[in-house]
């Protein structure tokens, strides 16, 4: 396997007496979508901003594209793209002006117009930032994060506060970013989003990474139990079990028994169930 794009070892960061990040270690591989997931206040944003070089860690080592985010900040900024949580731009800056300004800051940039078209913002070129919808603002921030063709792009709570359609549109865009070979590091507190998008996730709580892996592996390890729910003779039956053959076995048993089945569905646990099990509580909005 090629060298990791991001390596974090024993990261620790406190603000005054508050420990924001206690002990975080993780690796992000080239070309993957990596998700740092956990409730608000778990340390996601602080971890991400330490990796971007915007905050100085109290302890631990960070390497991004082989660079030290603190020491090599200038070189790193040419190679990473960022989007911040709840960010704004100047209220009365026009979309094209923002993209034009950002283009002037990097040594190598993509065609701004093509980028705006790709993100569905071409009709909003002359609109002021303050007149954009939540989804359009986030797409503009994605544009600004991608203007210099970064090797890694950081997206912090990108879809928080967006309606379902806008959220889905953004998911498509993120998958598209990865398809073009860019590594994506994102944070989210939406488990559905993490499960849909991420190749691998790290679950963070109280400043510590408590589990890491592919969403499917995490589900298989921590919540292996599946349910089969079927309706026959007017009553509903629920069967629970584990293992790759469980559903097949149930189907075979039902077929053998000869009952008339009017409804049949399976329920598989999700990342949300894993999170509940590992932390003892649900994710809080």
């Amino acid at each position, binding site marked *: 396997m090629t060298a990791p794009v991001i390596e974090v070892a024993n990261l620790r960061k406190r603000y005054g007496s508050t420990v924001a990040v206690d002990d975080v270690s993780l690796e992000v591989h080239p070309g993957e979508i990596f998700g740092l997931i956990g409730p608000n206040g778990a340390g996601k944003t602080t971890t991400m901003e330490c990796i971007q070089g915007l905050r100085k860690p109290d302890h631990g080592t960070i390497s991004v594209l082989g660079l030290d985010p603190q020491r090599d900040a200038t070189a790193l*900024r040419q190679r990473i793209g*960022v989007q*911040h949580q709840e*960010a704004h731009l*100047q209220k*009365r800056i026009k979309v094209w002006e923002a993209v034009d300004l950002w283009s*002037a*800051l990097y040594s190598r940039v993509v065609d701004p117009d093509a980028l705006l078209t790709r993100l569905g913002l071409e009709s909003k070129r002359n609109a002021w930032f303050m007149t954009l919808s939540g989804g359009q603002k986030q797409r503009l921030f994605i544009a*600004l994060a991608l203007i210099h063709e970064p090797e890694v792009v950081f997206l912090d709570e990108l879809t928080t506060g967006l309606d379902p359609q806008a959220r889905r549109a953004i998911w498509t865009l993120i998958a598209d970013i990865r398809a073009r070979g860019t590594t994506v590091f994102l944070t989210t507190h939406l488990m559905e989003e993490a499960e849909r998008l991420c190749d691998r996730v790290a679950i963070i709580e109280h400043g510590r990474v408590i589990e890491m892996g592919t969403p499917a592996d995490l589900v298989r390890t921590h919540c292996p139990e599946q349910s089969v729910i079927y309706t026959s003779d007017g009553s509903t039956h629920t069967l629970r079990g584990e293992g790759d053959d469980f559903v097949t076995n149930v189907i075979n048993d039902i077929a053998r028994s000869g009952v008339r089945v009017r409804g049949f569905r399976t329920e598989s646990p999700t990342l949300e169930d894993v999170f509940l099990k590992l932390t003892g509580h649900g994710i809080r909005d």
Partner: protein
Amino acid sequence: MLNGLWKLTWVETKVFLREPMGVIGTLGIPVVIFVIGGRLLGTNPAGAAAVGEAAPLNMAILASLIIAVGAVLSLVSIISIYREGGILKRLRATPLSPLTILGAHVLVKLLFTVAGMGLLVLAGRRFFPGAMQVNLFSFTAALLLSTLSILSLGFVLASIVPTARFAQPLGAAVLYPMLSVSGLFVPLEQLPAAVRFVAHGLPMTHAVALMQGIWDGSGWSAHWANAAALVVIFGVCSGLATRVFRWE
């Protein structure tokens, strides 16, 4: 990153121009004060009329200083709004240097200071013909130096102001009292010793002395100490601001 500095300055200029209240406040109000005040005090804005027993009030200098104060209030407000909205943080994540990000705002404010001065001159020619007998180049240079010095104090204010809502009131609470003890309305000698002592540490006082000196023709050489004080205050406040400035 000079390209980035010009681009950012240009963008911030355009953004500022799109906010009508800001433009009226920084460009329009000083002219209105100048013209109305000048009319009230007599036809000569350079101080034909006396305020009480005190020295004549020079409306041109007052209006110029209000341009400077307007610039600083606007800067404090913009910086705190940008900080609150994460705009500063977002710009910091680009290859722009911190100095460039803040320097662009200084350039915009100086640009509008010159524009305000230009409007003042036009108004002076229109309403008080013959009264504005001053070396405008020299006077504008003095105003720019004064503005820069007060702007550096503005950066200290912008650093300590907790939220954007407090930016304007805090700035006004600091700057207008500074103007009242600057020697413009009441000569410094007539102020209590303690007030005079404080006034000598404030940029506004030196700004007034320098601009009055240039207005009455004594020039820079007679007021080099005031100019130097403005430079020192700029250095001290800028140094302080770099230590206490908050980006978020």
